[in-house]
């Protein structure tokens, strides 16, 4: 069998595969450290029962949707109070409620976000808590 322009096609394929595989090859062998988010902030330390507005498993998987819903509720519908599944009430505010407990943005938020290479732009507007440069 003869492939017309076989050389060119082969070369093109090699270039394509090379480009497509570049991110994998580039990172190969470099194991990124497993994220290790911390919740050891002063406010959390002082809590009698250390729990978030919803269970940890839920928050881990769904905090982004929850924050989206909160945002729309507060900004668009004027609803500001969140009544959780356990009946506890919270002011829906990333900047004032979430970050009040989780004042360690670097070790709590960025740890996983960096690992997952997601860059939520919440902090372009919302002011992150003051932290010591580490």
């Amino acid at each position: 069998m003869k492939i017309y322009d076989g050389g060119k096609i082969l070369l093109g394929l090699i270039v394509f595969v090379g480009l497509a595989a570049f991110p994998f090859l580039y990172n190969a062998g470099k194991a990124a450290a497993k994220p290790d988010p911390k919740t050891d902030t002063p406010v959390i330390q002082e809590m009698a029962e250390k729990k978030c507005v919803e269970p940890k498993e839920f928050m881990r998987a769904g905090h982004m949707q929850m924050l989206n819903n909160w945002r729309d509720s507060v900004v668009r519908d004027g609803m500001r109070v969140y009544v959780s599944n356990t009946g506890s009430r919270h002011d829906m505010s990333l900047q004032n409620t979430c970050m009040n407990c989780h004042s360690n943005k670097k070790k709590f938020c960025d740890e996983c976000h960096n690992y997952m290479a997601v860059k939520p732009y919440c902090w372009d507007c919302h002011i992150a808590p003051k932290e010591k440069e580490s």
Partner: protein
Amino acid sequence: MSINRREFIRIAGISTILGLGGSVIADKLGAASEVLPNEKALKGKHWGMAIDVGKLKTDADYRKCIDACHDIHNVPDIGNPKEEVKWIWTESYEHTFPGLESKFMSESVEHKPFMVLCNHCENPACARVCPTKATYKRNDGLVMQDMHRCIGCRFCMAACPFGARSFNWRDPRPFIKKEKENKEYPTRMKGVVEKCTFCFERLAKGLKPACVEASGGAIVFGDLEDPDSEIREVLRTRYTLRRKAELGTGPSIYYVIGGGEHA
């Protein structure tokens, strides 16, 4: 609160595993929890303001109102008038009420600064033209700006006949003084439009807008639909003007001009 915690976790877990992702979780969350308005929130059908121009006497009186607003909302001080961001500021009579100026007029009015801000129109042109409903009118008459949704097309700025809207031509953060920063309120990012929101975040906590509080009684804030409100009493007894009322947008900011006991 129709399902218990265990079931809740199970559903959340399963939907994650199934990769159905957020919408399902969010829906279940919606079923299991609820959102409510703050009980202390001020309630009204049509918020409005009456600015008693006579009561604002010195530059410091204006400054207090402007600073109160700009400080709590992290409004940047860009310095360059072309890129300026402002929610409330002053203009002269002829610029506030173009078309109503006269060749010969009362000197006290002619040289008086007038406080200008978003008019929270009854029929807002900005909300009409917004292609994403980032700006819209709420049930309480407040014209809201959702800075999360704005795509920065600036159609609203072309539509607003009051020049009340500002655009973030660049990142505003470097232009907010660190020591003045209000940690409880966000800043904005580049590329979105912003304006006065009648302090929706304060109304939700039962507080009146910051400028009203700082005005020492010169600005009356209230429900225009409520005949017994203080603002309606002011409008009943004093002569007021609205900016460009002839355009039909229905501004909710009234200017008390002369007359009455303050003439």
